[in-house]
């Protein structure tokens, strides 16, 4: 790891902190960055508010904006880290957190929860949608692993192919659920496009509980991921138990993805673009790339969410926005790769 790494990570962290403060101030009710800091500081210390600050600010900052903003940041960071892990393990710089079909599983679970509501089976939606989405994602992961298991090395092709097969079946299932939902299909479609509207502290906590320990575990294995870029056979002779590391990290990254998807819906391209872009800028060393991806993903999704929340006249589903930015970017990478091929 180069000597510049701590500096790069510190700047990214600082930039994220700044983005959080600025974003919290933005919106229908504009709040100066300094006031945001004062409000949060007062809340943290449990002290009263300094004179001259609008008394509605604490509610707006603490209960409305901050949970949403933190949820967006953690989900963005989680997806980007998961993407970096998938790219490193599958030895494919164009893999993303959804490569193994985790998003389709989550979408299927969430659609099922929503359609049960529509069909008159009462389930509390706030609770059931994320839960079903999570269970859907986990079940998918288990099935994909079971499909790939006969290949002892868990090779990239086997895993990707298993993911594609399972995702195809699930998308047919989602189609069927949409058909059942009939005229109320809009609810499902809206969920699938992803959103951070109305996120609350419990959701932030839940996401953080999965994402941060996951991040630490991945950082622990970051050096092994570098070695595994040499291929499983060589990595094994260098003392890396590549099969074990692969399994641990695939499960860990998929869990992170599952929790992110169940909280926010399916948000595309963050997990693809951020690690890819940062790899171009910082090089492929996962010890730097993975933490940098966390900050990068957090900053990107936070920015995108703030754009839909505070700038656009009507809120656009964030998944649409990221895909609209991400799609053309993907084309650019693809084109550049083709041109650069020797």
């Amino acid at each position, binding site marked *: 790891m180069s000597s510049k790494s701590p500096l790069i990570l510190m700047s990214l962290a600082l930039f994220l902190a700044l983005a959080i403060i600025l974003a919290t101030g933005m919106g229908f009710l504009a709040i100066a960055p300094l006031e945001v800091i004062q409000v949060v500081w007062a809340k943290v210390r449990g002290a009263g508010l300094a004179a001259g600050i609008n008394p509605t600010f604490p509610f707006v900052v603490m209960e409305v904006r901050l949970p949403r903003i933190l949820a967006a940041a953690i989900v963005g960071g989680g997806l980007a880290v998961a993407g970096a892990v998938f790219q490193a393990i599958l030895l*494919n710089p164009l893999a993303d957190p959804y490569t193994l079909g985790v998003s389709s599983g989550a979408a299927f679970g969430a659609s099922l929860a929503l359609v049960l509501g529509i069909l008159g089976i009462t389930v509390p939606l706030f609770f059931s949608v994320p839960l079903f989405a999570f269970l859907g994602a986990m079940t998918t992961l288990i099935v994909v692993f079971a499909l790939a298991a006969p290949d002892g090395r868990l090779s990239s092709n086997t895993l990707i192919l298993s993911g594609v097969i399972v995702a195809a079946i699930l998308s047919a299932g989602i189609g069927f659920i949409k058909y059942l939902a009939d005229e109320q299909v809009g609810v499902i479609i809206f969920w699938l496009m992803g959103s951070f509207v109305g996120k609350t502290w419990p959701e932030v906590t839940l996401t953080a509980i999965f994402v941060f320990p996951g991040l630490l575990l991945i950082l622990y294995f970051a050096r092994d991921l570098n070695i595994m*870029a040499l291929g499983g*056979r060589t990595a094994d*002779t*260098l*003392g890396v138990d590549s099969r074990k590391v692969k399994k641990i990290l695939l499960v860990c990254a998929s869990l992170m993805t599952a929790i992110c998807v169940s909280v926010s819906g399916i948000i595309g391209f963050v997990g693809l673009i951020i690690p890819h872009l940062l790899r171009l800028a910082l*090089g*492929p*060393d996962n010890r730097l790339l993975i933490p940098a991806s966390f900050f990068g993903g957090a900053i990107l999704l936070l920015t995108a969410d703030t754009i839909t929340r505070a700038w656009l006249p009507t809120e656009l589903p964030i998944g649409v926005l990221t895909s609209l930015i991400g799609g053309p970017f993907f084309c650019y990478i693809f084109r550049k790769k083709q041109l650069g091929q020797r």
Partner: protein
Amino acid sequence: MNNIHNDPLFAISKGCFAYRANNVLQNIDLDLVPGQFYGLIGPNGSGKTTLLDLLTATRPLQSGQIIFQGKALADYAKKELAVKIALVPQQFTMGFDFTVSDLVLMGRYPYIPRFSNPSQRDLDLVDEAMHVMQIHTLRHRLITDLSGGEKQRVVVARALAQDTEVLVLDEATSNLDIHHTIEIMHVIRKLVREQGRTVIAAIHDLNLAAAFCDQVIVLKEGRIFTTGPVAEALTVDLIAEVFQVQAEVQAASLNHSPRIHYTLS
């Protein structure tokens, strides 16, 4: 220095390995002594790569056992073996833009504690390996920008940096031009002669094996056909029987290894 009478480095007894109901290797009995350059030869599909996988413990034996330095190979921790046995694979694809020196430094992975930086010795060995493979001038280049031959020299340098007693090469030079092939074989040969290391190399080119190896291990259809010193083992009959090729073998003389001329019609 003659190591022939030392205890074997590897002792395989009744080694079997099957892959999806095909017996890839059957009843392998083989002793390898230290300080020798072994050439592993045999037709495609005869089990050369599988045998190397067993020796590097990247695949487990299905029956029988392998003793390495007096202890069952399966009982070694991966990290323990990583400082004793290095592998140069035939196939090397790298999708990520590591620099040449980063990649060679990966050979030092088993020696560098997690979250630590490489020591001066690590860096020195990386430097030396790059000098030996003549890739020192490429050290800041990206591995993805190199030609196939340059890449393969980087891969060999990575294995040299690993600084192990045993070096396993799986057709390590089969993608290289003749110049670089001979150069790499000379370097490997020197490791055996001057430093007493042991090399086990799967080699397709029989003349290459004849020129550089001390001993050959001949595999045919998953069994050991024969083993022995190059000059004795590589005979017209063997080549006819194992490879189904008519050849003439020009006998070994002082300073000359046996040469094989194939009858091409």
